[in-house]
């Protein structure tokens, strides 16, 4: 080891006390739109990608059959001009419009069939969107029919997710893309998708360098209204403060991940900030299947602990009040949430319930990713929980972890409390039941029970979910409302905060909005 000198010590001290980084200098006021964000890209292949950045990239480059309207509720035509379904909600027929891919070839039923089969057979993260698809068939070049294994009133919503974007099958096949049942093992196109795109959207992929830059070029052959910018650059800027600085100096036009506190400190008159409710939420999860917790973290104890959290204070401490409480693990505004009432803080009742359950001297450990997501610093959030639990006589030890360690320890049931976040992939409540429902085999039932499903499975939820999928409209909403209530009573998932989202952009930019399916629709943005 080298000996430390005074100078090096000083330099290190200053480094340690500052988190400034210089973002790259970029043109402003031009035909290029520059967006700052911390990119979380796992893949740029629609059937493999699963990330917030992917949502708006795929929306700009590929097109789905239907998409979500500006009200974030109504489904509107996209590649499909119209559609029909049978009464059972098992057969869906779509009529395609005369669209073309970026290379000029027409978008046909065979491309839709191929893309959907591939999405299902690649068994990637977004494959759950079409997991009940039995067959997709070409009726004629402009008509395609899907058949599902069971009724699904949310199928249309699911295929509004950006991951169901239609790929130019002829081009993709040339580069190793497959749609057969062996696609998961044999498809070799992933590297190609990192350098090229094959969609019908208003933009095309120009280049991507991981952790640095994602560049899209306008699709000049686009069949509809062409995009306003000839180029869109997403530049990697890690934290909210640096993003805000880049925005204030005009190095970027839009900053995607500014938290409300940072937004409040922006002084430049050239920057516009809008705070809108989001459908994202951060939650605490109980894991009764964790080591030694089976007889400790009973439903009564979990319900008592849920009442010991000061939810209003939580909202203030995590996002400065810029957010909302959320009752069940289904975001506010989604089907079935209208009449769900969030829990209210009741310390005395919590103490009484804990005493009744015989839970004295309760000591718990919380393992959670040491991260800052949607403006919520998990360390701050969990310290607040720690303080609240302490008031109820419960000791909570905090273990902030890296993502990799967190995943390992979660699977092994190392600790009984955790904290994570969730963002929707489309507008609809089924995805939440599919993920958070205490139903045999479902992801969170598995996590909470660490494989011992009977410990947490709620027998009421399975039939309610089937009922929700069979019905539509108000009946489906009613079923989701009951599911939400059941999930609240499970007291496994405790939504803590639904943070508001900050839309921050230079004042010469217009058309910026938040979409529940697509994050940030780039084609709608222009410069004044």
């Amino acid at each position: 080891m080298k000996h430390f000198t005074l100078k090096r010590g000083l330099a290190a001290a200053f480094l340690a006390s500052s988190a400034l980084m210089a973002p790259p200098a970029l043109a402003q006021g031009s035909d290029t739109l520059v967006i700052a964000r911390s990119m979380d890209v796992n893949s740029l292949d629609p059937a493999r990608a699963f990330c917030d950045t992917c949502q708006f990239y795929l929306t700009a480059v590929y097109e789905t059959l239907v998409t979500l309207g500006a009200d974030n509720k109504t489904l509107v035509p996209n590649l499909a001009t119209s559609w029909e379904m049978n009464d059972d909600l098992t057969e869906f027929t779509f009529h395609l419009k005369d669209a073309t891919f970026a290379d000029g070839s027409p978008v046909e039923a065979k491309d839709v069939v191929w893309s959907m089969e591939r999405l299902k057979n690649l068994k990637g993260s977004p494959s759950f969107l079409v997991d009940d698809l039995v067959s997709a068939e070409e009726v004629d070049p402009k008509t395609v029919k899907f058949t599902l294994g069971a009724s699904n009133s949310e199928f249309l919503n699911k295929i509004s997710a950006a991951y169901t974007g239609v790929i130019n099958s002829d081009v993709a096949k040339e580069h190793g893309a497959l749609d057969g049942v062996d696609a998961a093992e044999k498809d070799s196109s992933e590297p190609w998708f990192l350098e090229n795109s094959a969609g019908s959207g208003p933009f095309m992929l120009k280049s991507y360098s991981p952790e640095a830059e994602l560049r899209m070029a306008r699709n000049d052959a686009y069949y509809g209204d062409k995009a306003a910018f000839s180029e869109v650059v997403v530049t990697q800027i890690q934290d909210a403060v640096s993003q805000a600085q880049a925005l204030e100096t005009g190095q970027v036009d839009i900053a995607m991940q500014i938290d409300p506190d940072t937004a409040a400190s922006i002084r430049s008159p050239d920057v516009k900030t809008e705070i809108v409710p989001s459908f994202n939420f951060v939650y605490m999860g109980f894991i009764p299947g964790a080591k030694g917790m089976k007889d400790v973290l009973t439903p009564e104890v979990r319900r008592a602990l849920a009442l010991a959290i000061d939810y209003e204070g939580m909202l203030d401490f995590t996002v400065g009040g810029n957010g909302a409480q959320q009752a069940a693990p289904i975001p506010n505004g989604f089907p079935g949430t209208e009449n769900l009432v969030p829990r209210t803080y009741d310390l005395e009742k919590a103490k009484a319930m804990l005493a009744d359950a015989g839970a004295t001297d309760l000591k718990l450990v919380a393992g959670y990713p040491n991260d800052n997501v949607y403006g919520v610093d998990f360390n701050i959030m969990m310290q607040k929980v720690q303080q609240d639990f302490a008031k109820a006589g419960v000791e909570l030890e905090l273990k902030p972890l890296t993502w990799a360690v967190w995943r390992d320890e979660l699977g092994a049931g190392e600790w009984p409390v955790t904290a994570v976040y969730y963002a929707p992939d489309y507008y609809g409540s089924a995805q939440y039941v599919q993920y958070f429902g205490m139903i045999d085999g479902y992801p969170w039932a598995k996590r909470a029970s660490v494989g011992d499903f009977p410990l947490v499975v709620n027998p009421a939820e399975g039939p309610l979910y089937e009922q929700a999928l069979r019905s539509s409209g108000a009946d489906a909403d009613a079923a989701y409302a009951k599911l939400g209530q059941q999930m609240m009573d499970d007291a496994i998932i405790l939504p803590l905060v639904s943070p508001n989202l900050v839309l921050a952009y230079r004042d010469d930019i217009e058309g910026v909005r938040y979409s529940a399916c697509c994050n940030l629709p780039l084609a709608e943005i222009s410069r004044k």
Partner: protein
Amino acid sequence: MADTTASLPGQTSGAMRLVRKLPPTAMIGALILLFWIFTVLTIQFWPLANPLDMVGRRLQPPSAAHWLGTDALGRDVFSRTMHGAVWSIPIAFLVVACAVAVGSVLGALSGFFGGWTDGIIMRLVDVTVAFPPILLAMAVAAMLGPGLTNASVAMVIVWWPIYARLMRAQVLEVKEREHVEAAIAGGAGPLRVLRVHVLPLCWTPTLINATMDFGQVVLLAASLSFIGLGAKPPSPEWGSMISEGATRFYSWWIAFGPGMAILTVVLATSFLGDGLRDVFDRRSS
């Protein structure tokens, strides 16, 4: 070099003489260090807010009531900074002491006995030194899991080789001296020779180095906490406080307190170490 032992600290007259010989910068360093040590020992009697309690609104800038403002959970940053010393200073002492103990023993054995003992220990030193210190500390801390105890273990692993090398070099030089040869000729056993005739003459560079490293250990501990491998929340550890402040840069006061605390400790130990070297080590001055 014969009077080196006479001016070692520990004897009253020697200590007084040492204070008089120290340059003014070293005196300032010593005073700052004494201040922090005094803080550690007496902090519980200070009329400060509980560093873990919410005392006001969140993210308030410095005011008369809260000298360094409040953090994201409405805790008093000044109180947390002062209490942070209780975490950082004793740990730095402990880490340096362990590193000195382990490194000096191994280094002395290595230098005195030579041969395969020397070979094995020095290769171990080479391997450890081959890694950048922060990287090795991160790897060890990540492997053992986060927490200050594990971070301390990681830092001892990073630091002991310096002292092994220092001590070995000193022992190699001293063991060739005539009084050592005389002792061996007189029939003294090797361990006795090492303990009585060699080691007392080898401590000076180690002491100087340990003083200077003290600040660096505080810094490395803070760095590990900064990246989430050191102190666990809600401990008011300086590194984790800076980490909290870094994500709220406009609330500059959150990181300012602990940042200044680290700065003063690192500067103070550097000043003091430089001064001690000027006094003791004539070759470099």
